[in-house]
């Protein structure tokens, strides 16, 4: 399924955050890079409908209005995404609006926990989990909704090396396409496509081996990055 942006602009007050973005994404792994305040998080939020374009259209396949039922979203801080006190309850919470039978909810939870090797956390209190465990539970919370595309907003920023590697391993096995906003260039190195956003526009768009070195070179000039 293709995500299409057609002349999308986002304006907050008098400030234009994103300007006339037009592109189509259907690669398996897409990375988004850019300096703080460049508009990359706003760009990502458009995928799930958390942000509405001031002008232009965002479409996933033929869908324009109901994006969040197709697109999962993972936030930087899992503490804010995991909302129920127990892991099992939190995973069930994401399915509440789908009105699924209880047996189906339980089966999905079991399957996702098993796929992520998290079954041992099922009855744990979420506030007692480590940062890495919380991140994986947040991912499980997204996966139970069976999204067709998943967006990640700086998913490894708060993780130590071990948890980062565990997360990268989980990410690499996900069958769904993913769009990842990150400052972690190692994470994005093996991706299919990289978008570099600067000043609310697509500054560069291409393979990691082309875009990332150019971005690094730009960052060496501190005025530019």
């Amino acid at each position, binding site marked *: 399924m293709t995500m299409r942006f057609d002349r999308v602009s986002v304006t907050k007050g008098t400030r234009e955050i994103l300007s006339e973005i037009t592109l189509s994404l259907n690669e398996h792994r897409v990375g988004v890079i850019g300096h703080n305040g460049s508009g990359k998080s706003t760009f990502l939020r458009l995928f799930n409908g958390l942000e509405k374009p001031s002008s232009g259209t965002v479409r996933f396949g033929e869908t324009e209005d109901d994006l*969040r039922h197709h697109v*999962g*979203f993972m*936030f930087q801080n899992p503490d*804010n*995404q995991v909302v129920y006190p*127990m892991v099992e309850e939190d995973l069930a919470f*994401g399915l509440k609006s789908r009105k699924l039978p209880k047996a189906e909810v339980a089966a999905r939870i079991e399957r996702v926990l098993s796929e992520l090797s998290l079954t041992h956390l099922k009855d744990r209190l979420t506030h007692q989990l480590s940062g890495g465990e919380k991140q994986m539970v947040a991912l499980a919370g997204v996966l139970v909704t069976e999204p067709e595309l998943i967006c990640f907003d700086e998913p490894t920023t708060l993780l130590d090396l071990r948890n980062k590697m565990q997360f990268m391993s989980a990410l690499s096995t996900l069958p769904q396409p993913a769009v990842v906003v990150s400052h972690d260039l190692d994470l994005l190195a093996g991706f299919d496509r990289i978008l570099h956003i600067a000043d609310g526009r697509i500054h560069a768009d291409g393979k990691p081996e082309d875009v990332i070195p150019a971005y690094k070179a730009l960052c060496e000039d501190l005025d530019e990055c």
Partner: protein
Amino acid sequence: MLTDLYIPGDSLLHRARPAWKLGVLFLYCTSVFVISHPLMLAAGLALVALGYGIAGLGPRDAFTAIRPALVVLLIIFVAQLWLETLSLAAYVTLRLMALLMAAALVTYTTRASEFTEGILALLSRAPKWVPKDKIALAMSLVWRFIPMIRAQFDEVREAQRARGLERNMLALVVPLVVRTLKTADEVAEAITARSLD
């Protein structure tokens, strides 16, 4: 009720319907508070102890329930002792402790999701304009965010201690309120992203 969280178990109390537990808690608190008699208090304390026993919980769990309120309990005891008599001070303090422990017993034996269902059951006859789902969700979120706000308070206190400001209430409260409001915004957004408007 807000002192701590669910303790997993399979006792009669764990399995009881949340709406019943909330209803019994309401009746218990009203009775112990309204009927001011030492026998009522003794019965109330015995009932709480029995409840903890049935739930497989011990004195440590009961103490955990009243620990956050110890300072307040002490102030009430001293004030009553100063204004009234030792027996009245003991009575008032013990009654508050019984209420706190009874409320905590419901928390200990009820999952947040069951609590949501309990509130929804209690609100089932409310008028249509009452946002039942939102009220139940908001109440359930309290469970999740008490430990988070507690952790944030500890972090802020540490940070201000490092600056020598641990006794400055403004330095403690302002960052905590700002962080809590920011967290509330982000959580609301995460709930929206999980397709629950």
